[in-house]
């Protein structure tokens, strides 16, 4: 029997469908949309073009904060929840490879975070467009060079977040592949999320290492954990800086390598798991 992407796709599709029907997704979406919609409250004060940066920051912040939370909860809940409820037994008793199950679960969880980021991006673009239009009407002199919001850069930010979340989803899949409870997988997910945000500190310590023990430890942490700080491009974009295509490609490659690494470990752990 050959490994089948179609079977993994079926599992991914079902995982996605389950997540969509989970109230959590809706709650997170409402929360995130409300958070950055609240930036409109400041329209009483006309900040001019800097207000657009403010709204963009709110939107980027929503994606940066709620995206990982959703990724961790959904990945853990949909993966290990199925094992806890023993639904996985019936599925694994069907003719499929366990790696198909792991990949399917990962793709399904990642798809849901993609949808979340895509919906937030659409909301952000609409909000920025509306506000920009109203500011142009009120003060057209400030926009003599035309509209200042670059929609492509908003999409680029969303894409980079999706890449970052692929690593986080695969990490949670790794923890779920051997965990015995959802709480453990979620806790580990949150812990690693924070650690990955601070990974650059370990990386700097590795470079500046004087003691061999610390050097080895920091080197290990730097290599095993991805550096999520690299994916924080919101500030550059908000400042109007342009990021070259090659930088995006490097980020994509970085995310692919780490995702593949974590998924491979998850497959190995899941293959060894007994039910």
């Amino acid at each position, binding site marked *: *029997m050959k490994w089948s992407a179609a079977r993994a796709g*079926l599992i991914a599709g079902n995982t996605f469908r*389950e997540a969509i029907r989970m109230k959590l997704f809706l709650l997170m979406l409402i929360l995130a949309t409300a958070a950055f919609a609240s930036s409109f409250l400041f329209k009483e004060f006309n900040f001019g073009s800097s207000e657009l940066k403010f709204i963009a920051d709110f939107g980027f912040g929503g994606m940066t904060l709620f995206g990982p939370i959703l990724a961790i909860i959904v990945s853990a809940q949909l993966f290990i929840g199925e094992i806890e409820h*023993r639904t996985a037994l*019936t599925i*694994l008793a069907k*003719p499929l490879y366990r790696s198909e199950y792991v990949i399917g679960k990962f793709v399904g969880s990642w798809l849901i975070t993609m949808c979340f980021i895509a919906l937030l991006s659409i909301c952000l673009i609409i909000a920025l467009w509306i506000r920009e239009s109203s500011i142009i009407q009120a003060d057209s002199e400030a926009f003599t060079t035309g509209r200042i919001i670059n929609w492509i850069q908003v999409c680029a930010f969303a894409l980079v977040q999706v890449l970052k979340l692929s690593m986080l989803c695969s990490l949670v899949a790794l923890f779920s592949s051997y965990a015995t409870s959802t709480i453990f997988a979620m806790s580990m997910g949150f812990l690693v999320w924070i650690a990955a945000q601070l990974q650059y500190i370990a990386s700097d310590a590795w470079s500046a290492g004087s003691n061999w023990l610390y050097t080895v430890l920091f080197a290990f942490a730097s290599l095993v954990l991805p550096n999520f700080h690299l994916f924080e491009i919101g500030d550059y974009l908000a400042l109007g800086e342009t990021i070259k295509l090659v930088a995006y490609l490097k980020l994509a490659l970085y995310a692919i390598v780490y995702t593949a690494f974590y998924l491979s470990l998850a497959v190995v752990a899941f293959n060894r798991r007994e*039910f």
Partner: protein
Amino acid sequence: MTYAIEIESVTKDFPLPVRGRKLRAVDSLSLQVESNVIYGLLGPNGSGKSTTIKLLLGLLKTTEGRCLINGKSVYEPSIRNEVGYLPEAPYYYRFLTGIELVVYFARLQGIKKREALAQAENLLFRVGLEDAKDNRIGTYSKGMLQRVGLAQALVGDPSLLILDEPIAGVDPIGAVDIASLIRELKEQGKTILLCSHLLSQVEALCDRVAILESGRLLAEGPLDKLLVSEEEKTLSIKNLDTEDRERMVKTAISLGGQVSVSRISLETLYLQLIGEKQRKAKLEREDSDQ
């Protein structure tokens, strides 16, 4: 000869949190199940029945020995095309409808969408869920969950069915329906491994049984042989008129025999009463529809 199931000197140990200690769930178990039989796996809780089933499904790895299905290793995923599994107390996706669930499992087995839908419709009809097929599984009763579980186990027309407590939680009428379906499946040439605590059900259905205790095999063989006791010889006589019956009773007593009037079981009485009532209600509904 290739057996539907072969368990060869299988031992399964689970490590315990105490260092170096282990729990032996299955102990040197050997079984052979021929094709086209209904085979009962009996034993009290913790006797190793579920572990044996999980070993057969490749969900657990043996510590010693090996398990084969139709002569092939259970760790080969393709072998599971030939196996249908109904777990004990199944829990399925609450957000799917009955038909969506069966189609999902069918498609996992590589069945094309249209064919999967046709199979799902047919199987849900066979297990008596045709009216509830479009309802969400979250709204299903325990008995309905068993039925939908049975439908997913039958997807892909497997030659071997492993049914773990198929009648648990099902009402007596439903239990009779499922028992008939199991017999029908045997007539179609399938092999059924049945794990149940309901001994009357096992007795009525199974050709052979194995009784486990603490992971060890206590007894194994055809029911006809296992249930005949050499010391107790009881005859059951039917279809005599009153006069002949009295004469037979007198003769039996004169020969030193003990005569008692047999009575129907509670299950039979329930089936007669409820079944008749439901049948009448159904007829009335049909009459009023016409």
